[in-house]
């Protein structure tokens, strides 16, 4: 069937805000695309660049890293470290020629279920026309 491409998104969600935000979206029965594979991490600051590269390597079409808003981090400053590190990873991914749209970061609080669904919806809309991510995917 020649349908549109269904991208896979790997989302690293921090336990204290973004994961709770996605949970809120779930329990509130909000509709959003099922393309996302959520992975709960303790803090957005604990997301190693290796996780991101490996998500792409294992076939993710897009990667989302989401944490608490600045100032709201459960560990006080984990998301500030993440902000810096992710900026560097983003620069590098763009430099080697990966489409910049494939990698995103967001702040989602535990109360922002609607924002979470909107981010996923928009991300899927952006990834659909790009098709499968083959650049960093491991050859079989």
């Amino acid at each position: 069937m020649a349908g549109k491409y269904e991208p896979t998104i790997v989302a690293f969600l921090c336990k204290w805000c973004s994961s709770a935000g996605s949970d809120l979206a779930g329990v509130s029965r909000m509709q959003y695309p099922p393309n996302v594979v959520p992975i709960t991490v303790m803090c957005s600051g604990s997301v190693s660049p290796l996780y991101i590269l490996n998500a792409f390597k294992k076939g993710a079409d897009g990667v989302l890293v989401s944490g608490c808003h600045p100032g709201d981090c459960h560990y006080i400053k984990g998301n500030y470290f993440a902000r810096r590190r992710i900026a560097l990873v983003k620069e590098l991914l763009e430099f080697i020629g990966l489409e910049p749209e494939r990698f995103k970061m967001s702040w989602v609080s535990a109360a922002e279920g609607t924002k979470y669904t909107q981010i996923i919806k928009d991300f899927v809309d952006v990834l659909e026309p790009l098709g499968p991510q083959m650049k960093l995917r491991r050859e079989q």
Partner: protein
Amino acid sequence: MVNLDDLKKEAKRILQDDKVKYVVGYTRSSAGPLASPVFIEDPEKIGELIWDASCVQNLAKFLLDEKRRKGRAKKPDTRPIAIVVKGCDSRSVNVLLQEKYIERKDVFLLGVSCEDLGVVDQKKIAQRFEGKTIQDIKFDLSPELAVTTEDGTVKLPIQEVLADRCLECQANFPVVYDVLLGDKSRKKVDEPFGSLEEIESMAAPQRWEFWQEQLGKCVRCYACRSACPMCYCDECVVDTIAFAVAADTSAEEKAQKIKWIEKSPTKSENFGYHMVRAIHLAGRCIDCGECERVCPVSIPLRHLNKKLEKAAKQLFDYNAGFEPDKPALVSSFRDEDPEDFIR
């Protein structure tokens, strides 16, 4: 102008006074025109030391070996070692100090200024004389070198065969030293990140093509890792077994360990390796160019590190190797760090 006799005098003095264990410097190599590192313990042999544009290596790497040797010894000799450092090398010492990998008292720095020049790029010289056999290259402290091929000797300005990193050098004199030889005048650099422009101006698909071709050449010999003064981890994440294996480590434990990056030199693994290395060197790479120089397949590795150096400078106003007392790039933050890419 660096006076070689002064360098020898200083080196001899610290050896005679028993201030240091040995001096690591450069000497004429029997293997080719470029200088090779030399370890001098005997003050009488100090005459072997040289300093000119052929001294390309970053000797700070030997500080890592020395630290390991000290760690293994039952009764370590705690005297410092002396190394000859150029501007870039001194910055790598600064990063090691910043990360508290070495202590300032462990090392005696004989700083030499590159002044207006720098060091040569052997590949550039070879390119200039393509098709001919270079029999000898004479270096002295003048801004010219004499290249002898089968057609005779040609004089060549060093400026024309300077290593790329020297053309973009931000510290042509040591920023940390115990003894400084030569001028402390800053060389004017118009475009500190000029070499990146060519790649940055490409569209994303072309950039991908470029890197796919370049990194596709990689044979994963890890020479870049071996030559890098910042790659001092005892266990590297790219090695298949990247955790301590003890006598009682079971086969299951070894098998269950995540292999982040496989050994095979395939496209995805090569990209993984080089990107992880670039990220791990963000804010630490001081652009000594050793990775690119030792690469047997000529991958322009410098560009990856330079790109992150540029990002660190532009986004976070961070200059690696200049401020050893400040926290490292990724273990610090400012409230005003850019977040326009975050939704």
